[in-house]
């Protein structure tokens, strides 16, 4: 029973991290109908920026995270405004190819700039943990988990209660109508992508404090974001959080009770089943189902 609880706790904590990785990806997909294959590269880039900030300024990653997010916001905004906006109305494989091209440039760029060595962000409290009953909880993972929850709720609050947020939602639901209100769709799209990149940067910083990273891991995070976003469903603002926690639990349990890496195979099986039978995700109904684009 203790093992089960321990595995469950670990799964949930890991799930928070997954949610953090996926939340921006899900936002971009939901609002703009763009599957951003460079999302994982943004995560890794965020990790590098936080790592550099710690190296130069000695700033704690939990503070460096915000600088990382700010930098990535600008990068994301520029990419969307000047590149992706040029093909948003194209067929699927055009948007996929473009974001894959961006992915290639980012990854190779990071390889050249930071080399392909493994890195991680060391902190004085990095290996701290505490116990609840018989369950051991690593501090950094808990912080990352809490951050994921805070960010999700902050994002929901932003989207629901600010003018800018509502304009993002509206553009996601009906771009043509939003433009008729005078909302500048190009700017809103760029803003959305910037936010997504910023969230990826925060996720990257968290990951850097927990595990090692290098540019080749980008693909893994993109895939994770996929699975989590689909599981949670694009229709729900809390989708990434729910999907992430679910995924974390499944990974935790399967990792404990199944041999080898069957857990990954199962994750993809679940992904396909959800796509075929519940294309709107496991939770909630479609929010952007009636998408109209002009």
């Amino acid at each position, binding site marked *: 029973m203790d093992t089960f609880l321990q595995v469950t706790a670990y799964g949930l904590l890991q799930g928070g991290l997954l949610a953090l990785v996926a939340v921006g990806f899900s936002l971009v997909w939901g609002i703009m109908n763009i599957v951003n294959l460079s999302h994982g590269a943004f995560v890794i880039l965020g990790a590098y920026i936080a790592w550099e900030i710690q190296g130069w300024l000695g700033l704690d990653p939990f503070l460096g995270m915000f600088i990382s997010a700010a930098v990535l916001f600008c990068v994301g905004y520029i990419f969307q405004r000047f590149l992706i906006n040029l093909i948003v109305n194209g*067929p699927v494989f055009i948007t996929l190819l473009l974001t*894959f*091209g961006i992915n290639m440039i980012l990854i190779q760029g990071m390889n050249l700039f930071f080399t392909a060595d493994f890195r991680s962000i060391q902190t004085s409290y990095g290996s701290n943990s505490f116990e609840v009953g018989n369950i051991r909880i690593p501090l950094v993972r808990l912080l990352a988990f809490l951050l994921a929850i805070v960010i999700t709720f902050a994002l929901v609050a932003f989207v629901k209660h600010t003018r800018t947020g509502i304009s993002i939602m509206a553009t996601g639901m009906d771009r043509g109508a939003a433009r008729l209100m005078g909302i500048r769709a190009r700017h809103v799209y760029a803003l959305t992508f910037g936010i997504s990149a910023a969230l990826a940067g925060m996720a990257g910083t968290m990951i850097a404090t927990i595990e090692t990273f290098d540019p080749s891991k980008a693909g893994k995070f993109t895939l994770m974001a996929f699975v989590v976003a689909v599981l949670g469903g694009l229709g729900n603002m809390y989708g990434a959080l729910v999907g992430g926690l679910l995924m974390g639990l499944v990974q935790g349990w399967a990792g404990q009770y199944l041999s080898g*890496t069957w857990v990954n195979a199962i994750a993809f099986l679940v992904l*396909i089943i959800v796509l075929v039978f519940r294309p709107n995700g496991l939770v909630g109904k479609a929010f952007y189902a009636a998408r109209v684009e002009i």
Partner: protein
Amino acid sequence: MSTLKALKSVNGFKRTLLEGLLVLVVVAGAIFFKSTLPGGELRAVSTIFMFIALSQAWNIIGGFTGYASFGQVVFFGMGGYFTAAVMLHLHFSFWLALPLSGLFGAVFAVIIGQPLLKLKGHYFAIATLGVAEGMREVVINLPDITGGGAGISVPIAGTFAKTQYLGDGGFYLLFLALALFALAVGTVVSRNKFGYGLRAIHQNEDAAAAVGINTVRSKVMAYSLSAFITGMVGASYVFQQVTIFPERLFDVEITVLMIMMVVIGGSGTVVGPLLGALGLQFISEYLREHFTNMHTFILGGIIILAVILIPQGLVNYIREGRRTKNYSLLANIRRYRL
């Protein structure tokens, strides 16, 4: 260009004859080059042939039918592992394993195609990608059959080897044959009833169904035909590489390369993917040689530029330009712009 014009001016039988001659000349040239090229270059050209075949295969489902199969590499990987497994465990000859691998891929495509081809757009792309990633994990977790993550080796010499290793020259011819086969399939499809049905489905499934096209069956057939070719190419690649690993054989980048070649060359045409495969492989090799470090960086840049400037692909761009007498790139960018 002048040959193209010549082809235009004659029709029907004469056109077929001219094309046949052109193919003969190219084949003769390719076989002639085989004896003059050094080993390294033979391998490089073999890779070009391989991608010609792969891009033609993707073009059937992605270009003609309009379904962005982002997990096409699954058929490459499964065909390859099928060949490796039957050659190693059952001592099949490669020549028997080759068509069977194609069939294996085709049957798998029929099975997954039934549910997946109901999905549209991104959902289909993501689901197929999920299948590819998932199958890689399955292969890793069946070490008794596939060797798992440690890889698997095909017997190429000794008593268990029914087929001796083909050598650089042999694989050159094998991939040439596959490329020609794929081009032939692509050409036939582009000109027959089935291919026109696929194009109609691409444009509008409701309208296609309204003229009597069984859209479900046509899509599944296109998918499995495309998988058949991809599976055979995967089988040949495995035999050429001898030892293979799941990461390489299910590498998403192989899918992306196929798509890039088709999209940049001109999807839905036969010449487009051919040009795309030739061009992109040449550029890629050139970059690898002269800008070793910057190779992927520059390639990424080329993809971005190509997708933004000529999203409809080179061949379609030229065709449209000839029709409308308008080659403006600016007008071209406007097409998908927000």
